[in-house]
């Protein structure tokens, strides 16, 4: 039962975040690349202000899977690194926290690009 509720919460939070993205696509001239950048930077900002933590606690993967969650992870990583290493943490905390995601994208991206055939341009 707990699993069902956590899935419903993830669905609601993830759905709302994607709807905000869709509103930006439909009603502004922002390109997808700019929307991705905006979501990550917003995630850092909300993480820094402590607003995103309760959203993650309630929404679970609904909050961490969207790109705002990537920004939140950057902010969280920096915060922890600052406490541990001082000012040096500002530089090494963020990317360390997101290293697995970035490396995974590079690894799987390389493998797929190697194996798959590019789409025929019609």
């Amino acid at each position, binding site marked *: 039962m707990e*699993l069902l509720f*956590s*899935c419903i919460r*993830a669905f*609601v*939070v*993830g*759905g*709302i*975040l*994607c*709807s905000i*993205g*869709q509103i930006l696509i*439909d009603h502004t001239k922002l390109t*997808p*690349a700019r*929307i*991705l*950048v905006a*979501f*990550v930077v917003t*995630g*850092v900002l909300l993480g*820094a202000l402590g607003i995103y933590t309760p959203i993650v606690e309630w929404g*679970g*993967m*609904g909050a*961490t*899977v*969207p*790109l705002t969650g*990537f*920004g939140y992870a*950057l*902010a969280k990583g*920096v*915060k922890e690194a*600052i406490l541990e290493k001082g*000012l040096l943490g*500002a530089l090494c*905390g*963020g*990317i360390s926290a997101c290293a*697995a*995601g970035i490396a*995974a*994208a*590079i690894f*799987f*991206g*390389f*493998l*797929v*690009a*190697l*194996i*798959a055939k*590019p*789409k025929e341009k019609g």
Partner: protein
Amino acid sequence: MNITQAEYGELAKKASPNTKSYKTIPSAFVVGGGICVIGQLLFALYRDLGLNEDSATTLVSISLIALSAILTGLGIFDNIAKFAGAGTLVPITGFANAVVSPALEFKSEGFVLGLGAKMFLIAGPVIVYGTLASIFYGIILWIIRLF
């Protein structure tokens, strides 16, 4: 034909297809929410396998990135994205697709300046501005902690 910029803007607005938000927003909500539910189910599975919360969260991201990469390679991702709009763009799947898709497309231009460079066409700015924002936050946090 001499027209002002404002007039041109009006014409362009009339000519561009109407976006039907009553259709696009629900599909973005359902697909995006659905991707997060898949994430939540994977999270529960990884927790059952004995991983701690942080590792399980990271592994969910990695799994969704791998899945998006495969679907992009098979040409399926684009078909879902056409229907889902921001539903596939906003989750980590959009980031993964933004890495794989140009890498695949520009493979013919070589491994270094084709695949290697174009991989970061969209992911690059995302990492750059995300990291910059986090560095500013770190510096501010460090200064606050001095007092």
